[in-house]
C-alpha cells in the first residue's frame, strides 16, 4: 500500500509544483467575477445563472484536467526514462497503474472541490444559498465521474502516446456526455440492425449524465434519494474497476525499449 500512496504523492507534488491547477483556478475565478459583475437590471435569477454557469465551467475544467493529467502520466514516464528506475524496484505493474490512477483522481477531485468552493463563495456573496446536502451529493457524484474518466484515459495511455490517448479520451467521454443521453430519441426512428447497433453503443458507452446533479443544486430541488445515489456510485466504481483492469492487462506485458524498436 505504501508504494501506491507514494506513487500518488509524487503525482500530487508534480501538479502542485507545475502550477497547472492554479491557472485553471484563477481562470474560473476570473470567469465567475466577470459573471457576478454583470447584474442586468438587478434580476434576482442572476445568481442561479451564475451558479449554473460556474458548475458548467467546473465540469468542463474537471473533464479537461482529468484527461490531461491521467493521459500523460505513463507516456511521460516512458519519454523521460523515469519508468526504468521505477520498474527496476520491487513494484508491480498493477501498483504503478493503481498508484497513478489514485494520484490523478485525487488531484482532479481536489481541484474540483476548490472550483465548488469558489462557486459557493460567489453564491453566498450574493446572499443566496445552495442546499448543502444536494451540493455534497453533486460533488461526490462529480468525483465518481472523474474516477471513470481518469481510469479510461489511463487505459488508453498504456498503449498510446500522450496526445493520442488524450484525443481518444476526449472523443469518447465527450460523446458520452453529449450524444449518449440523446440516443433513445434517435432509436424511435430506427429499425433492424442500425437500431441494435445504436442500442449496443448506448449500453457500452459510460453514462456520465447520471452523475450530473447540477440542475438539482442550482434550482434548489433538494437532495436526491440515497438509494439511487449509491447505485450511481456503484455504477461509477464498477466502470472504474473495469477500465483499470483493462489498463493493467494492457500494461503488464508492455515492453519498454529505448529507441525505435518495438515489440
Amino acid at each position, binding site marked *: 500500500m505504501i508504494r501506491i500512496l507514494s506513487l500518488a*504523492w*509524487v503525482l500530487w507534488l508534480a501538479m502542485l509544483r507545475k502550477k497547472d491547477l492554479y491557472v485553471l483556478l484563477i481562470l474560473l475565478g476570473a470567469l465567475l467575477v466577470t459573471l457576478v459583475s454583470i447584474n442586468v437590471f438587478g434580476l434576482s435569477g442572476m445568481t442561479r445563472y451564475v451558479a449554473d454557469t460556474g458548475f458548467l465551467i467546473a465540469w468542463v475544467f474537471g473533464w479537461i484536467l482529468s484527461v490531461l493529467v491521467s493521459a500523460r502520466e505513463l507516456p511521460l514516464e516512458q519519454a*523521460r526514462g523515469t519508468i*526504468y528506475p521505477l520498474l*527496476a524496484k520491487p*513494484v508491480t505493474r498493477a501498483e504503478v497503474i493503481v498508484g497513478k490512477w489514485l494520484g490523478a483522481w485525487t488531484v482532479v477531485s481536489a481541484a474540483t472541490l476548490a472550483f465548488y468552493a469558489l462557486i459557493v463563495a460567489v453564491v453566498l456573496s450574493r446572499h443566496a444559498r445552495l442546499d448543502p446536502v444536494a451540493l455534497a451529493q453533486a460533488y461526490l457524484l462529480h468525483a465518481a465521474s472523474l474516477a471513470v474518466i481518469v481510469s479510461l484515459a489511463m487505459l488508453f495511455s498504456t498503449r498510446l502516446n500522450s496526445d493520442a490517448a488524450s484525443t481518444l479520451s476526449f472523443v469518447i467521454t465527450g460523446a458520452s456526455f453529449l450524444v449518449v443521453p440523446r440516443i433513445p430519441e434517435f432509436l424511435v426512428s430506427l429499425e433492424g440492425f442500425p437500431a441494435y447497433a445504436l442500442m449496443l453503443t448506448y449500453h457500452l458507452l459510460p453514462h456520465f449524465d447520471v452523475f450530473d446533479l447540477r440542475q438539482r443544486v442550482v434550482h434548489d430541488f433538494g437532495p436526491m434519494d440515497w438509494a439511487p445515489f449509491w447505485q450511481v456510485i456503484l455504477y461509477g466504481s464498477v466502470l472504474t474497476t473495469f477500465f483499470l483492469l483493462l489498463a493493467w492487462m494492457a500494461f503488464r506485458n508492455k515492453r519498454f525499449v529505448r529507441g525505435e*524498436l518495438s515489440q
Partner: protein
Amino acid sequence: MDYAIETRSLSVEFRSRGGTVRALDRLDLRVRPGQVFGFLGPNGAGKTTTMHALLGFIAPTAGEAFLFGEDIRHSIARKRIGYLPEHPDTYRFLTGVELLKTTGHMFNMTGRALRKRIDEVLAHVGLIEPAGRRISTYSRGMMQRICLAQALLNDPDLVILDEPTSGLDPFGRAQIRTIIADLRIRGKTVFFSSHELSEVELVCDTLAILADGHMVTEGPVAEIVKPGENLERFFMRTVTERRSASTASSKGGRP
C-alpha cells in the same frame, strides 16, 4: 548455488517494420555473488537489452533468467537489486531527499531507518549539501549521483550499472570507480556495461564480450587478456573476428 545473475538460453526478439530483429540469441550468463562483472560490446550488441530483460522491462522471447535464484518475472526478484540506467533522469520537480524518500517507500522502508539510510547514501555520493534543492537545479554530474544514490538506497546485493561513467568528467568517473571499489569490498555484486575499456580494466575482475546478441567470450580479465595486449586491443580483435566469422557464415563460407 544461487548466482547473482543467471540466464539460460535467453533470447529477445523485436518486431519492427523491416522485419524481426534478434537482439539476444540464446545467451547463457552466470555472474557469481561478489564479482565485479564488466559487460562489454559494441553499440547494438545487446548489452542494454540484456539488462532490460533482467529487470523485467522486456519479456524474453525464449529462455529464462534468475536474480539470486528468483525468476525475473516476479517483482520480488528486484528486491535486492539497484539499477542505474544509461542517461539517467528522474522526477526533476522533487528535491533530492524527496526522491530518495519515494524510492525508500518502493522498498517498504519508512521512518527513522529510511531517514538514516538517506543520510548515508547522500554522504556516499557527496550530495549532502544540495539534497534539499529541487533536482531541476542539479548539474549533469549531480543528476548522475542522485540517481546512483537512488540505486544504492536499499543497500542492494546486486548493482546493475548501464554506462555509469558516460558523459561524466574525470572527477565524476573517479567517484564512480571509488563507489564500485567500495561495493566490491563490501561483497556486493556489480554488473556494469561501459565503452570506457580502461575503466573496465581498472575495476572489473570478470568480463564478458557480447556482439550481435551472442556471447563472444567470458572469463576473468587476467585470463582472457593475453600478456602484452591491453583490453582495448583484445576487445577490437575479438569483436572483429566475430563479425568476420558471422559475415562468412551468412555468405555460406566457413567461418
